[in-house]
């Protein structure tokens, strides 16, 4: 049943997100065309194309911000409306567990955010902006190769290091989404006249965010104090690698806590309007 839930969640969000993806890709094509024309043409038209290139590039960069904001808002609204408001009467009476309902939303959110990143990268490649600033595929490969061999010199596996960074990114994404969801779940478990559940959710999010930051700072300082401040250059990659692993562990712990809170609240304290 989880696959069916994901299908409907993707369909619901995809209707809006796909429009923004299309807009961003169109912007990228315009940036490419105006960039090529401004390089090829001289005089007034060439200058005009140059200005148009800058304008379309500005719009494209704005659409990059927009796509991330819209994705986040869409995910949060879908979660709230679909599971904790009127639509919850349908969703929570389906023959599926609260765990499936929750992870359908988590998986869909991860897909949308990873989709955002893929479309943003694709847009930049199409637009030719990176090449305009001297950043080509060859230079990217060269950068990775330099890092790989540089790391090897210090006795660090560069490929593993990059894998750890990717894992960290995905776990951080999951942690952020689960933190938002847990805040909404806690906010929507409160009843009473005149209670604004959305405001409570925001307050809970701020509180959990502060707690997370305090724990993270404490963990990083503890690691720094344990290793001392005078880390030799040859040990730096290993040292930052250790910090990354600690961050992964902490983020995983927080993700599990947030997910458990959300699922338990939906199982035991569902408070639909």
């Amino acid at each position, binding site marked *: 049943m989880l696959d069916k839930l994901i299908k409907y969640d993707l369909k619901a969000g995809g209707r809006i997100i796909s429009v923004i993806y299309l807009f961003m890709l169109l912007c990228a094509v315009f940036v490419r065309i105006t960039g090529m024309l401004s390089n090829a043409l001289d005089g007034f038209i060439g200058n005009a194309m140059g200005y148009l290139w800058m304008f379309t590039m500005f719009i494209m960069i704005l659409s990059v911000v927009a796509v991330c904001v819209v994705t986040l808002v869409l995910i949060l609204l879908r979660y709230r409306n679909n599971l904790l408001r009127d639509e919850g*009467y349908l969703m929570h*009476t389906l*023959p*599926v567990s609260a765990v499936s309902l929750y992870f359908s939303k988590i998986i869909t959110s991860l897909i949308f955010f990873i989709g955002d990143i893929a479309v943003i990268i694709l847009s930049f490649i199409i637009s030719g902006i990176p090449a305009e600033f001297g950043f080509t595929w060859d230079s990217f490969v060269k950068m990775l190769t330099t890092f790989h061999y540089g790391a090897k010199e210090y006795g660090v596996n560069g490929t593993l290091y990059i894998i750890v960074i990717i894992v960290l990114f995905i776990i951080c994404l999951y942690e952020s989404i689960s933190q938002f969801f847990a805040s909404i779940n806690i906010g929507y478990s409160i009843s009473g006249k005149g209670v604004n559940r959305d405001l409570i959710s925001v307050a809970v999010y701020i509180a959990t965010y502060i707690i997370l930051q305090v724990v993270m700072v404490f963990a990083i300082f503890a690691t720094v104090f344990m290793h001392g401040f005078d880390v030799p250059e040859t040990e730096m990659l290993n040292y930052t690698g250790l910090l990354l692993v600690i961050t992964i562990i902490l983020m995983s712990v927080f993700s599990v806590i947030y997910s458990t809170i959300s699922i338990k609240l939906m199982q035991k304290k569902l408070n639909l309007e």
Partner: protein
Amino acid sequence: MGNILECHNLTKKYGSKVALDNISLSINSGKITGLLGPNGSGKTTLIKIASGILSASEGEVMAGGNRIGVESKKIVSYLPERPYFSPGMKVSETIKFFKDFYSDFSEDAAAEMLKSLEIKMDARIRTLSKGNREKVQLVLVMSRKAKLYLLDEPMGGVDPAARDFILKTILMNYNEEAGVIISTHLISDVEKVLDDVIFIRNGKMILHESVDQIRSEKGKSVDALFREVFAC
């Protein structure tokens, strides 16, 4: 005919407020039971617990021999008093949704009923009138071959003609092996289709009898008895 719904010492508390107080009851298959009581008596809470929307504070609830959960939800068809489809969905998409999640759903039955109501398949839920939205929900809920139908205020806020349609739909679509619980305070409208009634007040069950018994032993209609019992 076995018991399709059983509650044992069911209690539900919201903080210090007791919404359901130690209720024990059994509902038989093949019968339509009216869950009757004034506003705030606990009718909706009882139905929500049986459908899995709420969890009990104390006691046990079984539907079709299963504790309330994924298995019980497979055999329970629940109609809440609120519109629960996303406004952006098309009517055809709501049918597809039910077909995907409920193996006992009859797409043909739903399509036929919607056709008779002249509700277009490609219409979006948000474009339908309030009455038609409620009808779409009822049609989908009743198009399942469920073992227990939980209908919470199915006639609340609709005109008399629509009430007749709702009763007709319930009678035509429920199967003889299923139990139906209708929560309402529009007793005169629903009385003619009821086999049993449960009176509930302040979270306590005060009566659970057959309609025939009430008529023969008390010499009253359910409506008259209700007015007598719940007189302000």
